[in-house]
């Protein structure tokens, strides 16, 4: 599909989102839905207008139709992208999106404290860093999080789902590193 095609699909998706929002709002009473109607109707109209313009090709998106790879970094940094092979660029984009999602998934599964260490370690190693850099950065990142956010601010770190399922979550280790580290020194 051309850039123009993808662009029109995105605009269409936004229009559908807006239409759904209005449809949902129709079930609410006037007080809850007044804002949704007042802003939603003009917005849906604008989105429809934009969609028509894009389909007819009367936008700047049409001018970029020649782009080989619409999703690349080309739009963020023209110079660098021109020099890069589109296939390599796609591979890198997919890889970083994988890491972003993987990081989130690991936080969900094993909690913040373990997830951070795990992903930092794996990412750096996969990026081909030396072990000294890998371990140094991992330890620094973990220490910073535990000291500032756990010990300092008592942020409520939810336990990882893996520990909840296996029944290990009652151990304070899984909700607070700081507690584990400091409790032997107390009174």
């Amino acid at each position: 599909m051309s850039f123009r095609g993808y662009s029109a699909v995105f605009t269409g998706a936004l229009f559908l989102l807006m239409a759904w929002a209005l449809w949902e709002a129709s079930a609410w009473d006037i007080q809850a839905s007044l804002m949704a109607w007042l802003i939603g109707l003009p917005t849906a109209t604008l989105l429809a207008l934009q969609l028509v313009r894009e389909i007819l090709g009367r936008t700047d998106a049409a001018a970029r139709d020649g782009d080989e790879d619409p999703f690349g970094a080309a739009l963020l940094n023209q110079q660098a992208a021109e020099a890069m092979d589109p296939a390599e660029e796609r591979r890198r984009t997919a890889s970083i999106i994988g890491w972003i999602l993987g990081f989130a998934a690991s936080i969900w599964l094993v909690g913040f404290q373990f997830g951070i260490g795990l992903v930092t370690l794996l990412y750096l190693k996969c990026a081909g860093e030396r072990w000294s850099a890998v371990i140094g950065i991992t330890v620094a990142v973990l220490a910073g999080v535990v000291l500032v956010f756990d010990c300092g601010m008592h942020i409520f770190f939810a336990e990882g789902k893996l520990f909840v399922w296996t029944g290990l979550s009652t151990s304070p280790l899984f909700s607070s590193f700081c507690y584990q580290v400091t409790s032997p020194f107390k009174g």
Partner: protein
Amino acid sequence: MNRRSATFAAAVVTLCLAFGAATAGAADVSFKGKTVAILIPYSVGGAADIMARQMLPFIGKQIPGNPTTIIKNMPGGGGIVGENWVYNSAPADGTIIGQFSTSVTDTIFKPKKVKFELAKLQWLGGVRETTVTFVSKDLGITKGTELGAVKKKLFFGTTSIQSPRSMIPRLLLKILGKDHKLVTGYGSSGDMRAAIRRGELNMTNDSQSGYFAAVLPMVEEGAVVPIAQEGTVQDGKIVRDPRLPDLPTYYEIVLELKGESIRKDPNYRAMELLAYLGGVRRGWVYAARVPKDVFNTMAASFDRFLKDKEMIAHFKKAIGFQLVSLNAPAAQAIIDKVVEIQKRDPEALEILKGMAQKP
């Protein structure tokens, strides 16, 4: 086994049990080396959070074993996420104390999402406050009893139609048959004070803390006039708050104007129910799962904390008036009364639910 040895064995077992029970009852549970957290079901920086942070140094020293005390925030769902967590998932060893502000009314107005039973929470203590209704000087009245005679149109402002605080004055106006316009949507009491100053509103109410901190200067300046208060619950009765002895309660005003027969009016009964609902303004609770001995130890610690002279002096300076606190039995009594009225008087309850729907 002969009979004598059987008797002996029984005696030993009994003795052991008795001894065990005695030691469990006598010796305090110690929190030595532990971390006790007060869980605030709201974000950092809100009124509930700021109050708890001020309490923290005073409460820590009263708990046996001098544990580290911290605040944990679990905001979401208008407080219900944290409240549900305390009741259902928090560790049962007593290291998590919930500080609940709206739990009592939540069980009435948001029953679908509430995953706890009011009657089963263990109340460690609480503080109580009255609320004060005040009107703009433009109305030209000085007393609540004159409200019915006001010529100008009343614009009564509140945060939301569900706000329990606003319901008593709304009921008052309803009983007096006084037409008014309910203006909802304000973000805070501060916004409503500004609205009164610029003439957008001419009537609203505020918590006691808000009243002493920010409304009193406006009263002294002559911009607004206080006309009625909610009162507090004492020994099962609704009385004027001891810190505002000269301001009549809504109930006094209604009784003066309408006579004793009004007590049978369901609107009046709904007003009374509201006073009990607000009886524990902020309460500290344990889940039902926390063992009784842990509860007793902590309730005693809260009792000492609430009597601490240094703490009382600090709060007097911070909020501008004497903190009136409820110990565990007093808080529990109010909650029991709420549960009882809810069962006994469904009609009053329905009126409140209806008021949360339309003005």
